[in-house]
């Protein structure tokens, strides 16, 4: 059983790395990019019986800092 966690900076929190990527894409001629946000993907291998609620608790306590980041969970 696996879970995939996406961690992104919240809207309204400046993402300087995403901005740098956007500038680079613009400089390369990709002129249709209006914004870039960069985040993290964390894949978890889980033992039988682990639930989405368990993963949510992991996100709240460690995987994301909810002061600045939001997260979403995909159970796969």
């Amino acid at each position, binding site marked *: 059983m696996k879970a995939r966690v996406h961690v992104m900076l919240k809207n309204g929190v400046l993402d*300087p790395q995403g901005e*740098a990527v956007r500038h680079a894409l613009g400089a390369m001629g990709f002129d249709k990019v209006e914004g870039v946000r960069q985040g993290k993907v964390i894949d978890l291998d889980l033992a039988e019986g682990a639930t989405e609620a368990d993963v949510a608790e992991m996100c709240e306590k460690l995987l994301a800092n909810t002061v600045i980041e939001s997260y979403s969970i995909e159970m796969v």
Partner: protein
Amino acid sequence: MKAAVVVFPGSNCDRDLAVAFERAGFDVTMVWHKDSVLPEGVDIVGVPGGFSYGDYLRCGAIAAQSPICQAVVDHANRGGYAIGVCNGFQILTETGILPGALLRNAGLKYICRTVDLKVETSSSVFTEGYSAGDVIGIPIAHHDGNYFADAETVAALQDQDRVAFSYVDNPNGSVADIAGILSENRRVLGMMPHPERAADEGHGGTDGTAVFRALAGMVTTA
């Protein structure tokens, strides 16, 4: 007067912080991240700069979950004193002892130089050796020093006179130019600049000495 300095894998300012405490008259014990208790009778805990756990996941995130950090949280909750510098500040925000978070510098560059800091309040055991409005030169050395908190939290910090230091010329994009903040009970200070690196003539400046001297005065009179 007893100080404990926490050492994580990747700490690199632990000895500098210990020397600054010793010069001010503290007995210093180094404590390892796997220890789950602080030495008996510790008056203040120092959480040093560096790259604890390689800055993996987020700066300070894994250190904040270490056994010793639970002891530091308990110490702070009991009203104990603590100072977190640089990575130590990041760790204290990750534990929730201090509000907000430290983001990547707005200019994306690691910055290592002495900057001017304005002392915003002398009303704390860390800053009473200064006068509000003093401008002091203290080194910064960080990649993730861009202090962020939501507008409500920043307003509360300002209303409660809990901004200890601010940048005269903001180097990293920190909200409201914030360089260091105090906990609600004013007994925990977190700051990105390094006062322990401006505490000896050989450092090229001694503007940081007053932080440690004031602390020593506090503990002896308490």
